[in-house]
C-alpha cells in the first residue's frame, strides 16, 4: 500500500489530511497565544513578575501572586481563551454555511439575540432560569427570526445582513429596556450585556465555556469534511453524498450553541467570530472551514483585546467588547465596501 502524502495516518483506519502550511500557521498562532497569556498574567501593577510566573503556575503561588492567579487574572484569562475559541469556531461554521464572510453570527444578530436572552433571564427572572439557557433561547430565537424574515434561508447575503441588522437593533433595544427597567443606576451592567466584558470572571464561567467547547468541538470536527464540500454548492455536495441540508442544519445548531455559550460567560463580544475565520483563511490560503485555526485565532484576538482592555491607560476600565467593536467595526466597513464593489451585496 502506498503511503499518502499530506495525511496524518494512524493504522489502517485513520487518514486525515493535514497541510504543512496549516501546521505552521497553527504553531505560530499557539506561540503567539502563549506569549499573550504570559503578558496577560505578568504585565501591569498587579502582574506576577516573569521570574516568579513558572513557580506560581506550578503551585507555588502565595499571597498577592496567588490572589492574582487564582481570583483575578487566571479565571479571566481562561474565560477569554475559551470564549475567543468558541467565537472563532462559531464564526467559521456559520460563514462556511452562508458562504459569505458577512454571514457571521455577530453580524446577523445571533450574538445580540443571545445577549437579550441572557439579560432577560438574569435581570427579569433572576435565579429562575440559568443564564446560559436564556442565552441559548435568545440565540435560537434570533436565528429563527432572521431565517424566516430572509424568505430565502441563509443563501442570500444581502437579505441576511439586512435582516440581521434589524434583529441586532431590536435585541440591543430590548437589552437597554431591561437594564433600565431593572437596574436604573448600573451603567456597567448595561455595557456588560451590550458589549461584553471579561472583568470579574470566575472559574465557574471558565467551566461553562470549557464544557461547551468540549461537547461542540468534536461534533464540529466530524462535519468539517462535509462543510468543505458544501462550498462547491448544494448540488455538487449532494451528488457526492455529503447531505448538504443536514450538514447546514447541524453547523447552524453548533454555531448557535457556541455563540450562546460565549455570551453566557462574557456577554455579546462582537467581531471575533467575523474576523477570526477570515484571518485563519488568509493565513493558509487554502480551502475548507479552517475550524482549528479559526478557534486559535479567535482565542488570540480576544486575549489580545482583553490585554489591551486591562493595560491601556484609558479611564474607567473600558470593557473588552468595546475594543473588539472598534477593531472589528473597521474590518466590517472594509468588507461591506469590498462586497458592495464586487456587486455581491
Amino acid at each position: 500500500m502506498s503511503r499518502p502524502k499530506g495525511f496524518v495516518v494512524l493504522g489502517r483506519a485513520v487518514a486525515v489530511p493535514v497541510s504543512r502550511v496549516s501546521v505552521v500557521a497553527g504553531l505560530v498562532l499557539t506561540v503567539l497565544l502563549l506569549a499573550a497569556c504570559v503578558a496577560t498574567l505578568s504585565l501591569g501593577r498587579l502582574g506576577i513578575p516573569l521570574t516568579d510566573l513558572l513557580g506560581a503556575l506550578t503551585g507555588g503561588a502565595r499571597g498577592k501572586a496567588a490572589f492574582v492567579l487564582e481570583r483575578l487574572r487566571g479565571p479571566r484569562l481562561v474565560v477569554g481563551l475559551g470564549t475567543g475559541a468558541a467565537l472563532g469556531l462559531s464564526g467559521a461554521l456559520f460563514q462556511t454555511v452562508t458562504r459569505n464572510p458577512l454571514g457571521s453570527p455577530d453580524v446577523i444578530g445571533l450574538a445580540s439575540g443571545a445577549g437579550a436572552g441572557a439579560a432577560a433571564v438574569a435581570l427579569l427572572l433572576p435565579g429562575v432560569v440559568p443564564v446560559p439557557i436564556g442565552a441559548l433561547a435568545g440565540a435560537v430565537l434570533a436565528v429563527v427570526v432572521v431565517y424566516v424574515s430572509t424568505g430565502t434561508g441563509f443563501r442570500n447575503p444581502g437579505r441576511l445582513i439586512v435582516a440581521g441588522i434589524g434583529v441586532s437593533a431590536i435585541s440591543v433595544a430590548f437589552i437597554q429596556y431591561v437594564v433600565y427597567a431593572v437596574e436604573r443606576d448600573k451603567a456597567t451592567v448595561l455595557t456588560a450585556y451590550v458589549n461584553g466584558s471579561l472583568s470579574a470572571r470566575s472559574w465557574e464561567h471558565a467551566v461553562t465555556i470549557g464544557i461547551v467547547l468540549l461537547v461542540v468541538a468534536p461534533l464540529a470536527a466530524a462535519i468539517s469534511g462535509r462543510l468543505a464540500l458544501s462550498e462547491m454548492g448544494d448540488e455538487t455536495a449532494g451528488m457526492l453524498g455529503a447531505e448538504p441540508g443536514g450538514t447546514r442544519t447541524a453547523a447552524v445548531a453548533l454555531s448557535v450553541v457556541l455563540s450562546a455559550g460565549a455570551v453566557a460567560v462574557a456577554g455579546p463580544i462582537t467581531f471575533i467570530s467575523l474576523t477570526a475565520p477570515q484571518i485563519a483563511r488568509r493565513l493558509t490560503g487554502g480551502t475548507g472551514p479552517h475550524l482549528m485555526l479559526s478557534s486559535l485565532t479567535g482565542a488570540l484576538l480576544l486575549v489580545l483585546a482583553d490585554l489591551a482592555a486591562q493595560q491601556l491607560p484609558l479611564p474607567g476600565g473600558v470593557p473588552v467588547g468595546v475594543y473588539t467593536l472598534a477593531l472589528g467595526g473597521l474590518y466590517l466597513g472594509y468588507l461591506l465596501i469590498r462586497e458592495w464593489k464586487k456587486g455581491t451585496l
Partner: protein
Amino acid sequence: MSTTGLKDAMSTTTTGLEDAMSTTTTGLGARNVTVSYGGDPIVRDVSLDIPQGELTMIIGPNGCGKSTLVKTLARIMKPDHGQVLLHGRDIWSYRGRQAARHVALLPQNPVAPDGITVRGLVRRGRYPHHTLLRQWSPDDDAAIGFALERTGLDDLAEAQAGELSGGQRQRAWIAMVLAQQTDLLLLDEPTTFLDIAHQYDLLELCRELHREGKTIVAVLHDLNQAARFASHLIVMKGGKVVTQGPPSRVLTPELVAEVFGLACDVVPDPRTATPMVIPHASLTDGAA
C-alpha cells in the same frame, strides 16, 4: 494501478447488487416519478431506465423538466411521488456516499472554492470512497491521475482552479466526477457556458469516454449536437418523456414541430449522416 485494477476494486463494493442488474439497464431508473419545487410538478409521472453503455442525451424545450429529472436520478432532489431505483432499491434507502459510488452528476453551476487547485478539486470526487476518519483510500492517486490524464489536465494539476479558462474549468469538473469512479455519469447542460469550439471539445471527450465503456447521460440544448453525439435520445416536454430511441429514428420534423414548436427540415448531416435540423420558422406565438 491500472484502470482494470480499479474496476476490480469497485466491483467488490457492488457484489450482491450484481444479481439485480440486468444486461440492458444500468440499474438506475425512475418509476412513476413526480417532482416539484413545492409548487406545480416539473417532472410528471416519468418512468424510464437509463440504458447501459449508451451516450444518452436528454433534449426538450426550456422548463420541460430535463434538469430536474437528472437531479432526481442523482439523489439531489427527492420525488414527491414515485421512486428512483438503483439496482432495484429506492435510491433514498442508500446512504449518500453509497449512492455516490454508483451515480455522479456534474451540476450546472458548481462553485470552485477560493484557493483550490485543480488536483484538490479532482480529489473531492473521491469523497464517496472515504470515511469520517479515513479521508484517503489506496485507489485515490490512481483515480485522480486517470481523471487528470483523461481530461488533458496533467500539466495544470497544481494550477488554481479559479485561474483556468472556461473550457479548462469544465474539464476540471469532468475530471472530478471521473475520479468518483461511478458506473454512471450524469451531466447537466455541460456545454452551456462554453464557446462553440469548447462545446465540441467537451462533446468529443464525452464520446471518447463513452467508447471506453462509460455510460453517460447529458442534458443538452442543441439538437444538432445531441443528434451527432448521442447514441440514445430522450425527448421531454411538459415534464413528461415524449419519446426515446436512437437519434436517426427519433429526430423527425414532426417531433421537432410537436415538442419545440419549430417547423423544420431534418436532413442527413453532410459529415456524419446523423439527423440535422434546418429550421424554417417558429410555430409559437409571436412568430411572423
